[in-house]
């Protein structure tokens, strides 16, 4: 059995790895070092011998108590490639005109994520950093969190540079926008089940200003804008702004998304 994780949950109990990760680590521990590295080199996740990133991280963390640097250098190299693979390929799904800037920002985000991940690895080797436990539970999720941290600075910079050209409290939602919303809704729009369309929609949502993106995120998760039921979690309540503001942000977002996805939605 691999060494238990040390990170505690809110209720004081310890986090545990998912059973498939535990079982896979157990099986891999029985392999020789060379065979382990060979298995970790497999990049096709459909291959039955593919090793999950959670497991590779576990083996790299074992270097805390082991001096065999040649062995760990190989695993360390594979792990860094896995960090990159865990980042979403946003740039692949943006419009032609935005590709160059999306690519350069993808490279910046990748470097920042690698930098932060390296910091965590080093702290873990010097002591034990419980934050890496999260990466042994769900690697891609934890990397998504690092990616968010890496992007915050960019968002702050954006906010400073873009002038406020609109007023949240003006303009009424139009019929056209309401229709678009209905089609945007993942449950009512069959088109969104098409993975290619969904990816383009995600990429377009990704480039929205933060306040609009948050409204869309809540709509996609089926939250209502407002409700008479005081117990209900609504967008108005969570974001702490007026209903009209929420609607206006939604309308502006949908107008942008429609333009970005003109092909799918028809113009």
């Amino acid at each position: 059995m691999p060494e238990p994780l040390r990170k505690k949950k809110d209720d004081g109990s310890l986090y545990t790895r998912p059973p498939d990760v535990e079982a896979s680590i157990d099986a891999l521990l029985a392999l020789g070092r060379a065979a382990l590295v060979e298995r970790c080199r497999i990049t096709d996740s459909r291959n039955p011998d593919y090793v999950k990133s959670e497991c590779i991280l576990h083996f790299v963390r074992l270097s805390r108590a082991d001096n065999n640097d040649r062995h760990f250098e190989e695993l360390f190299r594979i792990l860094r490639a896995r960090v990159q693979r865990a980042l979403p390929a946003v740039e692949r799904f943006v419009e032609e005109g935005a590709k160059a800037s999306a690519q350069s920002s993808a490279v910046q985000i990748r470097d920042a994520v690698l930098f932060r991940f390296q910091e965590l690895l080093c702290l873990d080797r010097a002591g034990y950093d419980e934050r890496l436990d999260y990466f042994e539970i769900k690697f891609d999720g934890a990397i998504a969190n690092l990616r968010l941290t890496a992007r915050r600075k960019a968002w702050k910079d954006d906010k400073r540079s873009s002038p406020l050209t609109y007023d949240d409290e003006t303009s009424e939602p139009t019929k056209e926008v309401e229709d678009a919303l209905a089609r945007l809704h993942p449950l009512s729009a069959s088109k969104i089940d098409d993975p290619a369309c969904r990816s383009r929609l995600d990429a377009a949502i990704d480039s929205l200003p933060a306040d609009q993106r948050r409204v869309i995120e809540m709509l996609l998760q089926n939250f209502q804008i407002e409700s008479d039921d005081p117990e209900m979690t609504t967008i108005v309540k969570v974001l702490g702004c007026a209903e009209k503001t929420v609607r206006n942000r939604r309308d502006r977002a949908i107008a942008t998304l429609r333009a970005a996805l003109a092909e799918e939605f028809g113009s």
Partner: protein
Amino acid sequence: MTGERSAEDVLYAFAVEPRHDRQTLERYLKSYPQFAEDLLDLSHELRLSADLGPADVLAEDEASFQAAWRQYAAIGPQGASPASADNLFDRFKGRAFVALAEALLVPRSVLAALRDRLVVPSSIPQGFIRRFAVAASATVEAVQQYLALPPVTSAATSFRADQKPVAQAQITFEALLAQSTLTEEQLAALQKDVE
């Protein structure tokens, strides 16, 4: 759930939930309303990574891989006693000293000036001190304490016959870098420290 956890902790906990559906998001929004915007941003990030598929892995250039690996390997496995302000450089002599300079992406002359405390402590960027602490398996406090001690008169200087051994005056970190020849990689790493 309590509201006392740090934002970082809450976001990681949300990130590793088995499902990221409405119920999970709602539970977190209710428990941690103070982090609502962060949770929504993360929810979006998680959707991206689930829907978009893995990024193309551009082969990492060997130099930056090696720099990362050297930094990691220089820490040494646990069991080595953590460095303190008194013995910070004891483990970094000869080749280990060279490896530490490489891991920090600074010329050896810069590391030597830091070792001999010839740099005004307050002029050293926090980011660099953090990197230093990580690379030397020391705490940030230990590094700061070490750098705050008086300058060292090096043995080499004190035995030189033609001059009186005096402690050199401290210079700023910026002035030290200005005197040094830095590669582009080193410059970029140092610029990151001040961001």
